[in-house]
């Protein structure tokens, strides 16, 4: 998943769970059935899992642009000046 996809996944997860909780509570309260509330919410959790957990393609619409490996050779890592520092300390 890319960064935009992760943000989308988190938002979808929160909105879906809250929406299903509200619908489940309202349905259970109005129909007078506690079991109805629990079943609707359980279904909502399963649906949210299917939508947000697997790495779907629509989560990867802004893929990260990694540098080409040949670029890394053109800009070598800076070397630490270890040998220059050690000599004064030994004295």
């Amino acid at each position, binding site marked *: *998943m890319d960064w935009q996809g992760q943000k989308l996944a*988190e938002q979808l997860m929160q909105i879906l769970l809250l929406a299903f909780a509200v619908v489940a509570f309202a349905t259970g309260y109005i129909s007078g*059935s*506690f079991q109805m*509330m629990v079943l609707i919410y359980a279904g909502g959790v399963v649906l949210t899992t299917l939508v947000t957990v*697997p790495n779907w393609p629509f989560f990867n619409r802004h893929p990260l642009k990694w540098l080409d490996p040949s670029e890394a050779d053109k800009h070598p890592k800076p070397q630490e000046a270890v040998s220059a520092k050690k000599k004064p300390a030994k004295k």
Partner: protein
Amino acid sequence: MHSLGFRVNALLTLGVTVLALMCVMASLSDNLSVPSPSANVQVLNFNWFQKQSEGNEEVSLTFKISADLQSMFTWNTKQVFVFLAAEYETPKNSLNQVSLWDGIIPSKEHAKFSIHTTNKYRFVDQGSNLRGKEFNLTMHWHVMPKTGKMFADKIVMTGYRMPKEYR
């Protein structure tokens, strides 16, 4: 949200927290309904009334209990535990409570009932104070919810009197 495990963990944690909030709201919604129960007990007969060898009196009675507890049931009620206690005063104890009968009401349909029975549990006094004694029959109930706090209440019915002599 960078890996599968992270997303599963976030989903489960949020899911359980929201479920706990729903249960709290369900429990609070019970306060919206006002119960109006009614009960009546008729003592049909004192079957026998004797003093045991240890010096304690025992009485057996047959009574008819009719009650309507349907308004106690909400969507969040699992069952109602109801029991009938005889209450009276003696010189030794300011309050004696003896449980005579109990039952579990599992649903609203069973909450309106009429029972004709002898006492399920023995009515034994501490000593011999019962001859001619006035006593109350109190119906207590405990409403057990599916989630949340259990609460208890009672109805006191007065005006019952023991026989004056052993029989």
